[in-house]
């Protein structure tokens, strides 16, 4: 037994093997990393998955097209709205349901609020990963306001299940516009503090700059998407490339950096927050009147065929692939989650870096483990 443990603990070259996780403060969940170390330097990182696998894809096969949407909130719980939205989009695409203009604007507003909330949590968690605990609480202060807005309109704070095929579940709460405007003014004031506390900090910049480099080619070959790929100079914003809902009508820029290091990923997300804020500002006063939900049949039946739709979540490209046999439940569902592909680049980025860098790289990848494992 003792001998077996020793064999497992060291490689043939005498390097140390450490199990990081599944219970570890910086893996943000139950990710298990098997890292091979030479002193402080990382030689290999091997992610082990499966600790939070709930077979959501299989589960969806026994649920109807109205029911399966709620399960996807449990995948990427930080952008559950956008996940639900992606599924609703796929069903609508298959059934050719026309979503009312009001519902489209509400969906985009909710998506951007979710993106903001997700990035705020990421910002706090990244700061915590590199050792500063205080920003976490400051980030949650702002996130709490978004959660309150969500609670008022959608009835839940994290797993909203607000999107239904053909629109949204309820109309906006009468307070919605007022609350969102209050949030925008509050957040604009606090955004400068984020820079003071973290972005400008010399220790933080040293921890981030030049760490975890991912070239444009590697980002493409690993299938990275979202802020991770955009920080390496890959233009991959689904909102620009395959626009859905009212995104073609709003003004926003696809944030890009070319350095490909942790700091670039950090800056992409920080600038994306500003972009999301600007999208919300553009739309909040121009919510059209009308229906919030298209008239649909009580039981949805997708025509026979294969359907795919993609959407930009806070972490990247989220794809929904439905194979329908014409019944009330899907024959097969596959989700393309952004976190899984982003995680696959971890080994490439972390090789030759220090343990502290591994934590920073994982922080900038913005991993949500249930999203990776499903």
């Amino acid at each position: 037994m003792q001998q077996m443990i020793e064999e497992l603990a060291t490689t043939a070259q005498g390097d140390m093997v450490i199990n990081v996780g599944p219970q570890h403060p910086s893996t943000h969940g139950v990710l298990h990393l098997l890292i091979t170390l030479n002193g402080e330097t990382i030689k290999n990182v091997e992610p082990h998955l499966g600790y939070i696998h709930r077979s959501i894809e299989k589960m969806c096969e026994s649920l109807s097209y109205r029911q399966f949407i709620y399960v996807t909130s449990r995948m990427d719980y930080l952008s559950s709205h956008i996940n639900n939205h992606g599924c609703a989009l796929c069903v609508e695409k298959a059934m050719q349901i026309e979503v009312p203009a009001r519902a489209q604007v509400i969906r985009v507003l909710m998506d951007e609020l979710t993106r903001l909330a997700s990035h705020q949590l990421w910002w706090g968690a990244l700061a915590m990963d590199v050792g500063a605990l205080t920003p976490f609480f400051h980030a949650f202060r702002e996130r709490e306001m978004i959660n309150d807005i969500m609670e008022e309109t959608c009835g839940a704070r994290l797993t909203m299940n607000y999107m239904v095929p053909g629109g949204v579940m309820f109309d906006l709460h009468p307070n919605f516009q007022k609350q969102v405007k209050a949030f925008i003014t509050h957040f604009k004031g606090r955004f400068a503090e984020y820079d003071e506390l973290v972005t400008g900090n010399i220790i933080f910049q040293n921890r981030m700059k030049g760490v975890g480099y991912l070239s444009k080619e590697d980002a493409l070959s690993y299938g990275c998407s979202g802020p991770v790929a955009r920080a390496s100079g890959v233009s991959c914003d689904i909102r620009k490339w395959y626009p859905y809902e009212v995104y073609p009508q709003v003004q926003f820029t696809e944030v890009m950096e070319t350095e490909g290091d942790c700091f670039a990923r950090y800056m992409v997300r920080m600038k994306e927050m500003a972009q999301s804020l600007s999208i919300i500002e553009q739309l909040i006063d121009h919510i059209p009147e009308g229906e919030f939900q298209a008239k649909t049949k009580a039981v949805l039946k997708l025509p026979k065929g294969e359907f795919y739709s993609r959407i930009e979540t806070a972490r990247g490209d989220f794809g929904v692939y439905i194979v329908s046999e014409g019944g009330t439940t899907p024959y097969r569902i596959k989700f393309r989650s952004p976190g899984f592909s982003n995680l696959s680049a971890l080994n490439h980025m972390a090789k030759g870096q220090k343990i502290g860098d591994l934590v920073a790289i994982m922080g900038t990848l913005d991993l949500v483990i249930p999203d990776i494992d499903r």
Partner: protein
Amino acid sequence: MLSLEHITNAVHQWLYGNLSEGWALFAEFVIIGVLAISLFSILGLVLIMMERKVSAYMQVRIGPNRVGKKGMLQTVADTLKLIVKEGLTPDGADKFLFNLAPFVVMVVAMVILAPIAFAKGFQIWDVNIGVLFVTAVSSVSVIGILMAGWASNNKYSLLGAMRSGAQIVSYELSAGLSILCIVVLTGSLRITDIIAAQENGWWLFKGHIPVIIAFVIFLIAVTAETNRAPFDLAEAESELTAGFHTEYSGMKFALFFLAEYVNVFIVCAIGATLFLGGWMPLHIGHWQGFNHVMDYIPSSVWFLGKTFFLIFVIMWFRWTFPRLRIDQLLNLEWKYLLPISMINLLLVTVIAIAGWHF
């Protein structure tokens, strides 16, 4: 006015008057031991409470507020919990060293207390090499940490301990050099002499900019030496879970925890003694009236006030900054702090020889 000096002298004379010399000395040892242990427990309770409150306010929270009035008994409750908790020794650990390590760390912290002057004439041991004693003994604590890391038979602990070793050994240099600045200015290693030399003004104000630089370097170096954030690489909870004390639980963990805070107190007390005049009230040159008013505040209050101010500054560091990486930590020491403090020491020597200080 009631002075601690009178009490200690009275006790000393009473003991030596009533007991034989050997027994009197023994009785004094016992009294000092009891006092030191009770100081430790009180310090642990107060400092942990202070840290939690400081962090809470900086993080827009309230902090503990349930146990006792305004949560003041929270640390007492936590201590009780730690006492009744099982002290687990992992299978495969070096049991002797594993159990010894927390006590080594603790005893080292206790020994450094000896030359610190808590108030006028209230000092355990006024040794003539006081400053040297402090710097020498404080470097022993790294042995305790290395011992804990090695004996735990845990790779996280080992990494944490090795980091801690590299860190403490290098930061001791700049801490020592900045302490030397004051020794050069005073011309004595004895703590009493250093305090006495600051009667007409603290060294921080008397020694021009070089002493201020030395003070800043001292603060940074002792923060690193006590393994506090942003230099808490030995613990680094997001990287190494809990570093060298990952495997410790119950009271053994509490000893490490306590030793950290007591070490913070001690280094801050030394900083206050060297740069801010220890128990010496704020005196400005020859302003007799002002100096006289300041003397009315008891010397122990001055000492504790200065020490707690420095402790607050160190806590402020902790709750603001991200952690450094191990190579950046060593870069900071060898490329920035050490050259600066060496040049600084030269400048201070010039000032001391030329007598340019006030």
